């Protein structure tokens, strides 16, 4: 073989991957989905993954003349892995959109990258307030903690509760929730008689709950991340707080649909506020829940799944608006102000903050056909994510 041809051959081989991805870029839109699929937050990843797959099955894998390809990556919930995966997805796979992000630090680690590479970052789960302020390319389809907490503080103040003790997990979202509840509730004339934080990874709540019992407030406000609610509620039941005259209220993270069926009758009547319940009585939601449960037996969709489902909807809508163009800035602009009827109710992306404006429901745990559900009995429409102090 002549040396010249060999060199040419080498050159061709070297440029193959580049050519390949360029050719693909013409007709394929890639979405990098980074989720914790293993480890402590695996259930979050699974719910979102299942919802994304369901959305693709229902809406087809092409939009605006482009084929949509989702690349799923497991970041094990570790921030530097998330960052590297995101970077590889941008650089090597040339993804048009990054999505997922199960926990706050994971979303924050990628924020500078989204700005630098001008790639939209769709946050489907992480709920600390500051996230969207970290990059103009971040759009969120879940919620912020104050957004779902403030209506509960209002409800408590209106329903004869004068004193509250807060007990939250000791990390960003937990602190957010406690602060928002306190700010709003004290402004409405209520009093916080104790603020407790439990370590994120310790399952023993007994000393904290005993403290609550000894403080004897009218109500106990709870927040723990999705997945820990059931263990907490068991210990609440064991401590017999309700019998001691202490009402238990929480954000919907605690009575998470993923775990609610196994929580037992002790949670009956518990009041929570959140943006989604699997029992939401709209035709859209009924169809969604039925399809989800058919595709994933023994699994009930929770708010994480809805964050993922709506995230995909938003990406599809944005692609329709740009006519399939994958320019990051154009995509984010197309997302701003988008509004639709989600399975959770009417939603809108706030053009100024890129947060989701949505209805927050006040719900009570009830038994329907022998199964526990969060049944909505009141709602506050169009809740804009409030400032962290809840006002």
């Amino acid at each position, binding site marked *: 073989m002549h040396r010249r041809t060999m060199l040419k051959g080498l050159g061709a081989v070297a440029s193959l991957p580049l050519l390949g991805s360029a050719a693909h870029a013409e007709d394929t839109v890639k979405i990098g989905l980074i989720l914790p699929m293993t480890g402590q937050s*695996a259930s979050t990843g699974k719910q979102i993954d299942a919802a994304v797959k369901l959305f693709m099955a229902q809406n087809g894998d092409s939009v605006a003349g482009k084929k949509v390809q989702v690349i799923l990556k497991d970041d094990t919930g570790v*921030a*530097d892995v998330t960052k590297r995966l995101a970077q590889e997805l941008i*650089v090597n796979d040339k993804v048009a959109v990054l999505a997922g992000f199960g926990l706050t*630090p994971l979303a*924050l680690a990628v924020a500078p990258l989204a700005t630098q590479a001008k790639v939209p970052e769709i946050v489907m789960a992480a709920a*600390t307030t500051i996230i969207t302020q970290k990059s103009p390319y971040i759009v969120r389809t879940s919620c912020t903690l104050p957004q779902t907490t403030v209506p509960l503080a209002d409800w408590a103040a209106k329903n004869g509760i004068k004193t509250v003790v807060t007990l939250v997990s000791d*990390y960003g979202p937990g602190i957010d929730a406690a602060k928002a509840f306190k700010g709003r509730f004290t402004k409405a004339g209520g009093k916080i008689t104790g603020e407790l934080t439990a370590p*994120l990874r310790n399952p023993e709540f007994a000393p904290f709950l005993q403290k609550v019992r000894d403080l004897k407030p009218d109500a106990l406000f709870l927040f723990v991340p999705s997945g820990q609610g059931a263990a907490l509620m068991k210990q609440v039941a064991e401590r017999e707080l309700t019998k001691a005259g202490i009402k238990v209220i929480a954000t919907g993270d605690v009575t998470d649909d993923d775990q609610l069926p196994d929580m037992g009758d002790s949670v009956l009547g518990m009041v929570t506020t959140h943006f989604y319940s699997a029992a939401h009585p709209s035709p859209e939601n009924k169809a969604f829940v039925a399809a989800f449960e058919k595709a994933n037996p023994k699994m009930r969709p929770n708010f994480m799944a809805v964050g993922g489902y709506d995230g995909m909807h938003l990406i599809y809508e944005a692609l329709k608006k740009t006519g399939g163009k994958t320019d990051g800035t154009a995509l984010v602009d197309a997302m701003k102000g988008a509004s639709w009827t989600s399975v959770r109710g009417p939603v809108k992306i706030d053009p100024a903050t890129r947060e989701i404006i949505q209805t927050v429901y006040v719900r009570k745990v009830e038994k329907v056909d022998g199964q526990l559900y969060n049944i909505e009995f009141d709602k506050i429409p169009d809740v804009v994510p409030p400032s962290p102090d809840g006002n």
Partner: protein
Amino acid sequence: MSLPEPAADAARLLGRRARIRPAEWLFWALAFAALFLLPERHLILNSIAVQALFALSYDLVLGFAGIVSLGHAAFFGVGAYAAGLMTKFVTGDPLLGLAAAGLAGGVVGFASSFLLLRGSDLTRLMVSLGVALILAEIANKAAWLTGGTDGFSGMAVGPVLGRYAFDIFGHVAFAYSLCVLFVLFVLARIVVHSPFGLSVTALHHNPLRARAVGVPVNRRLVAMYTFAAIYAGIAGGLLAQTTQFVSLDVLDFNRSADVLLMLVIGGTGYLYGGMIGAALFVLAQDQLASLTPQYWHFWIGLALVVLTLVGRERFAKRLGAFARLLPGAR
């Protein structure tokens, strides 16, 4: 001046062990070739380089000083936060950041080394683990400084040597990490073959005899442990600078366990084990996790089980003719 015959023999023997083997040239040639030949893999190569430095540091502790630890992430994490704070509040220069990281790692290593001088392997394992977990809890509580669970962000790392800015492709990051790894490796190689390093190794193999010939056991152990902790701190600093983010999991138990796995896979006591193990481990994890994001742990686990049952030693021998060419391989 001439040494008496047996001493001269010993010196020759040790000199031969310290000689640079051909396989070593090959190893580093391959590593640097990756800079030019695999540009689209630089991101993962960078994390391999960081892990390799971390594993090298752990080899100094386990392979040379013979201290089993399950808390090596303590120094890695402290280094990462030190580099982060340095960048955010003092200067964006990466090398000064690394110096801060190494210093922080060394201080914590020095302070905690005194806790590890007594007790069995199991005791040392648990005390080192306890130190790392307490540091993780401090980092969590000191959210005003470290960002707590939300992570530490807002680091603007300046260009390396004032010229090479970090890019999104990881080119500069990898080149930077690889150079740091190389320089520190050379230094480590000199140290373990110095009289000091040899006395530490002797200690590890036969503490009684070492004590009898007058090696100050505790002082040597403290020194080696601190030296390794500086390395771990620098590895943490590298991670912080190249990801421009620090999260609490830099201090996590899993990180300590992973580095132990990497080193044991690659083999202890010859400096290259950690680096080879890091490369194998990170690549396997990455490949398996992209094939089956949900269940890749199963395959890693299976590999570990098979590896131990077949015999790590035999595996190391297969791995090489190569491994045997490296200095001090047993």
